[in-house]
């Protein structure tokens, strides 16, 4: 409607302009266009109780079902978590945890028994979780050299300044350099199923497929191209100070060794928050078996290397299935339900306001 009235005006204007002004004398009369005259057709919403009311109800009505859906989905996810830091004296890992040093030669192992009261049907993801570990510290996040990790041979021998003070050790370039790599999580976790018949069955943990595909294939590359001999490729470099083994000995598998070791890649993706988990292994559902992890007793065997007690950190092992929306997290569902309810409630409030006061102005306007 608005647009049509404006158009009519426009035409009028054009006629007058084109008439006498078409001659030699160029008039400086402004053009009569909707834009220049600020008459663009426009939608003018007016926010009153009456007009926004539907929005609130609609939001409420949409959000609550979504919230319920999300909540149910999240609840269907099975998750099991076990803290193996060893803070308590009673904890099997207490002894190991007393060792604050990174480079103790003697590996400390501890095994933690636990009971899964629910069977896990689909693929199970095994995480290690760290708490109070500030992987997002500004200087920490920076302390890496992406070029080196990408297999750049020059950066391999001359790590970026960002890696300082973890760039050189004993005048040799560190590979991989930087604080992130230096502090890599180096506990190894193994899972055993205690068959009710007494045998201890080790559960096969998949080492690969835990990192982003792009990380493994694009971002991280071993130096020296396709040189199968990583030892040679990394020649002239030294291992990070805290590491026990050089980078080319991370795994026996050629495809998972060196910079493209997936544990390493996962670690290098710095966590956003001080309490985080990182994917450690995947327990794949075997084709012939119905359950990936049947209900029963399990033992977690930990090679306890990673000191966290010094900064009040915690270490956890998490077993979880995932759904289309990721891991278990009821928050979003609850949030949707809450916001939906609040909207609904506010809608009701607005309805009352609209009924009590809203008609006053309008009716007066129109009746007058």
């Amino acid at each position, binding site marked *: 409607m608005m647009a049509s009235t404006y158009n009519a005006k426009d035409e009028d*204007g054009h006629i007058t302009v084109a008439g006498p002004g078409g001659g030699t004398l160029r008039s*400086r*009369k*402004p053009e*009569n266009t909707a834009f*220049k005259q*600020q008459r663009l057709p*426009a*939608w*003018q919403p007016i*926010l*009153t*109780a009456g*007009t926004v009311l539907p929005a*609130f109800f609609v939001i409420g009505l949409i*959000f609550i079902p*979504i919230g319920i859906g*999300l909540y149910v989905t999240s609840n269907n996810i099975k998750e099991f978590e076990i803290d193996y830091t060893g803070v308590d004296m009673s904890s099997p890992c207490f002894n190991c945890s007393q060792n*604050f040093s990174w480079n103790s030669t003697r590996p400390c192992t501890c095994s933690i028994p636990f009971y899964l009261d629910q069977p896990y049907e689909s693929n199970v993801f095994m*995480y290690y*979780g760290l708490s109070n570990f*500030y992987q*997002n*510290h*500004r200087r920490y996040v920076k302390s890496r050299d992406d070029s080196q*990790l*990408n297999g*750049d041979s020059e950066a391999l021998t001359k790590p970026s300044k960002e890696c*300082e*003070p973890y760039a050189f050790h004993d005048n040799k370039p560190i590979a991989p350099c930087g604080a992130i790599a*230096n502090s890599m999580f180096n506990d190894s976790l193994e899972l055993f199923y205690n068959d009710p018949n007494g045998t201890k069955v080790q559960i096969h943990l998949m080492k690969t497929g835990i990192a*982003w595909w*792009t990380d493994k294939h*694009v971002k991280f590359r071993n130096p020296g191209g396709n040189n199968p001999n990583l030892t040679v490729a990394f020649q002239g470099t030294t291992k990070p100070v*805290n590491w026990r083994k050089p980078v080319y000995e991370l795994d026996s598998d050629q495809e998972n060794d060196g910079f493209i070791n997936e544990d390493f890649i996962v670690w290098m993706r*710095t*966590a*956003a*928050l*001080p309490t*985080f*988990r990182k994917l450690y292994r995947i327990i794949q559902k075997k084709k012939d078996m119905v359950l990936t992890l049947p209900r029963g007793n399990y033992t977690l065997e930990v090679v306890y290397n990673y000191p966290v007690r010094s*900064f009040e*950190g915690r270490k956890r092992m998490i077993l979880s299935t995932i759904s*289309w929306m*990721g*891991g278990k*997290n009821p*928050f*979003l569902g609850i949030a949707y339900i809450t*916001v939906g309810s609040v*909207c609904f409630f*506010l809608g009701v409030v607005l309805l009352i*306001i609209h009924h009590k*006061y*809203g008609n006053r102005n309008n009716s*007066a*306007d*129109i009746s*007058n």
Partner: protein
Amino acid sequence: DTKKPRLNRGGAWEENPNRHYANNKIKTTKYTLLSFLPKNLFEQFHRFANVYFVFIALLNFVPVVNAFQPELALAPVVFILSVTAIKDLWEDYRRHRSDKEINHMDCLVYSRVERRYVEKYWKEVRVGDFIRLRCNEILPADVLLLTSSDPDRLCHIETATLDGETNLKQRQVVRSFFDLDCDFDPTKYNSIIECEKPNNDLNRFRGYIIHRSGRRDALYKENLLLRGCTIRNTEEAVGIVIYAGHETKAMLNNNGPRYKRSKLERQMNVDVFWCVIILLVMCLFAAVGHGLWMFQYGDKRPVFDVLSPEGTDLSPIMSAIYLFLTMIIVFQVLIPISLFVSIEIVKICQVFFIHQDMDLYDEETDSHLQCRALNITEDLGQMQYIFSDKTGTLTENKMVFRRCTVAGVEYSHDANARRLAMYQEMDSEEEECTSHGGTLPRRDSVTSHQSARVVLRSQSTKSHRRTGSRAEAKRASILSKHTAFSSPMEKDITPDPQLLDKVNECSSQMDFMRFHSQPMSQLPSDLSDIIDFFIALTICNTVVVSSPNQPRQKVRMRFELKSPVKTIEDFIKRFTPSRLTSGSNSSSSSSLITNRSSNRGCSSILSSPSAESTLTKLDEEKPPNLEHTFSPVPPCYSEKAWAVAEGELRYEAESPDEAALVYAARAYKCSLVGRLPDQVTVELPHLGKLSFELLHTLGFDSTRKRMSVVVRHPLTDQITVYTKGADSVIMDLIKPPNTGKRQKKIVYRTQNYLNLYAADGLRTLCIAKKVLTKEEYACWLQRHLEAETAIQGREELLFESALRLETNLHLLGATGIEDRLQDGVPETIASLRKAGLQIWVLTGDKQETAVNIAYACKLLEPEEEILTLNADSQEACALLLEESLHYIQAKFLCSSADHAAKAFTANFAPFEIYPSSSPSSSSVPFMVHRLGLVIDGRTLAYALDKSLEDKFLAVARSCRSVLCCRSTPLQKSMVVKLVRNKLKVMTLAIGDGANDVSMIQVADVGVGISGQEGMQAVMASDFALPRFRYLQKLLLVHGHWCYSRLANMILYFFYKNAMFVALIFWYQFYCGFSGSAMIDQWYLIFFNLMFSAFPQLITGTLDKDVSAETLQQLPQLYISGQNSEEYKPYMFWMNMIDAFYQSLVCFFIPYFAYADSDVDLFTWGTPITTLALFTILLHLGIETKTWTWMNWLSISFSIALFFTVALCYNASCPTCYSPSNPYWTMQRLLQDPLFYFLCVITPVTALLPRYFYRACQGTLFPSPVQVGRQLDKLPAETRRNILSLSRVKVGSPLSTKPPFLSLAKPLPKGSNKTEKGSFPSPKASQGSILQTHDTRKCHKRSQISCAPRFCVGSLQFSGFLPPSKHMHLNGLTGQI
């Protein structure tokens, strides 16, 4: 005086001896190619914000504290700086181009080598060069006039480009070159000129010329032709260049544009300061937090706490200090770097739209509004006081004869009234016709310089360029084609048929009588009155006649034209024997060589002998020989010239009303055809041309308020005095009524009509005559001559002499001249007043005129009381003010309390448009009453004294309208300054003339009317309007829009940045206060500059809270701007709180959604950025009032841009962008359903409170603006009905009062009239000084002319107008 001798030596030398003076090349550019970068940067760094941002960018280069990649951090500031630099460069380039054009204009310079005048560029002109100037040429430099082709040794110049005055100025040849022949030979020139140093005073020039003979002659400003002026009417002139180039007065006067800071910007700067405080607090908080976080680990350094690059351990305190700096970098966004640039962009767009507004375009002059100050558009929306000039601002400064009364009979001139009404529409076309007609002949006359007109136009365009637009130049050139005060509207008066018949009858009778040699006294007295009336109109003035064929060339109808009068002796010799001469004749500026002021001495010398001879001649006078006296056309007149000139004569008058009267008389075939110092020639119907011997002209002065001419009537041969003057004075000089019943009746009737005229806002003049017997004349002449020759107190004696003559007058009639109000002035004033603006009129005009106009333009209402302050001493003024204050308090205190109570109940009237502004208005301590204050210049001078100014303000601010008459330009500016500084209000000054310049400069916003008086006001102004009425749209619509747009945009900016930065701040709690940011540095840096910039610019430029129509129909909406309701200090904090709330939501919903997951830093940060972007854009959506396709487009563009950039950026390089390296992050996020769920819930939650609040506000307590928007939504018909109803019903008390008063105390319906009637009689509360004139009783005229106007006004309309009250505060000490 520091006079620097400037030696100008012309002569036969080969080289100019004045090489060392500045040449005429002008260079107004700021930069050269080399100096551009350093100079521009230096200038930009004067802005504190730029220094700050550069400092932060440089801080990034320090490794310990850096937060971002240093190069990247430089990007925004470099971008901002380069945008500004490019803008500056472009401006400078334009200046350079126009400089070049000007420098390459041609002029004729005397070449010493070639011994002739050669064409040269302006820039090659040097001091000491001789320049030959031709008609219509523009002066290239300040030139001392040495010779002119004009026989009077004059050179006429038009100074429109300098001061905008369109009337011609005369310049004289230097005295010592006076006697030279026309062909001045530069080679013979050998004198030295010494003059003062170049200065910018246009009205002063002093120096002297030293001739070889050692003779010294003084030089005055009358000898100097200034650069930029145009030569007119003078075929050729030669001068010597005194000042050139940048030393010319015109260039020295060319100050650059002033930088004004708007109120909004001042307020914004306070909040920027608060932002800095918030920033520092946040940084400090983070620094302390970091220190504590470090401290808690003690010596056991955790593995993630990386050592410094040197491997050294940082102590908690040191790292806290470093962190503080880092945080400043990270949080820098809080101080919005793009705010300043955005504001500039938005303001430029706003200016563009104001420029483009068709409603502000004046077809007649082909000019539209010009914004000359780019940075105070939003101030237009916050004005509180308007100070307006009267003449030319409220009025057109076109005096139009409207009606007259002769011999007690009113001739209503209805046809004339209709004609005037018609001009409202017809104006433009007619003007165009005449302007074309006017150019053609001129072009013929200047054929020697082909296309002079084109040159003229282009040149005057150039000379204006410094201050900006072509519009001015064009206007100036249009104006120059006209004689002043000669638009068709002023010229073509439609005669009243009745009166025309009478004139014809009368003149035919006279012709008959003349033919039959009957004495004229036998003519019926009413008929003779009529003819006398028109003769008086024609000759009782100082109008000079010019012929249009040679524009502005005087019509010379002198007998011996060939040899102009050179000496006084010659003059006497030639004229005394044959004709009477008059010494005090000051009207003949056209043919007297020297101008009036300098001629005083001479004229008195000359007058005595001539006058004596007059006396003797009178004695010897034979009985009138009619046939003889009646040779009206002198034989030596060239008949051919007459034929051409006939009917096409132009009248050049000093004041527009004189011209109006002459044109009026011409409409009755009674036309002035020639004026000489001693003779006026009038052409009458049937009678042909009559020459009146002009014996004396007693010029107008403001004390007498009248002028008279003494002539010898050629028909009756009587010595007749024609007097024309203000009704108040003439009426007192009329012969006592007892002399005749008829005269008594005439006087009575005329007085009635005069009052009627005044009520119509017409300027009234009375015309009277007096016939002197020879004895009386001789007697008077004797004493008059004594007075003229007196050495001491000559002025007073002459004054007394005039008083003696102007007595016992015979009233002929009165005229009503319309000082035509510009179109729509009363409406504009009414609606501006409704908009809460206080309007003061400051005029140099006399009190009566000013009051009349004030009534005409509804500034004063008939039912208003008027306080008139006239004091003649400081004490009297103090007393007056004191009394008025008491009076106001006594009178209105009780009534306002009464009203307030009523207002409370009235606020719940069923229809209410302005509910929420009442609280603010009630807090105003001073109520504005229905009072008008009229104060004259002298009293104003006392009132503006330090000791009285507070009292004056107290009185003035409680009056609804204030009228300052007879005020000087300085007083005008003092009043503005006083109000501005003491009341702390926003002031706007509007004026059109040079006398308004100071006021325009002092006010917060200066508006110039590009009217008849020219460009000087425009040059000084911030905005130039073609018409006063455009002020309404400029303020009410554009001002409101600009203000509300900018205010909202600034608030939004603060919100946006705070919201964005707070996200990072919350994150510090989860990253050990390490200054880490989850938002990628690219997003962080370009968020403001790119992703979220466009929508707010679009909204800031295009958003309309209320439509233009509604804003104009409901001026009350303007009050929101005055009260700064769109941007109050608390709103900043509300926005901050909202920003923090929203950022909490945007931070913690993703936080909890991703809590204890394997999410990495940037996979988590990117959704937060996205959410923040959505929230910010939706927030803008809530605040956007009108959604055009531009808004939709800009928002979609922003979102699309963000995702595009993010996707490209995240796919571009797997190893770059340390430290974030967000490779493939966005791509993965887009596959994650969780991301979409976040994108839905977070903005909704974040905006819920604001949305809810807005909705409640819209229903529960809508602001006036919101009500206006609701009105907007209604169909046009309904809206109009509502508005008209509201005006009639509720609005009627509102509309007649200033709105905020009315809001506070709207009267119940119908109480309006009774209320006025029941105002307590002021008598009770008055002291002895307050003399109340109840208008019904005032049959006698009081001292002030506005009073009689009321007598009749109320007599006429007593049936339906409430009685008006008058209070005269006469502070004359005698009365006290």
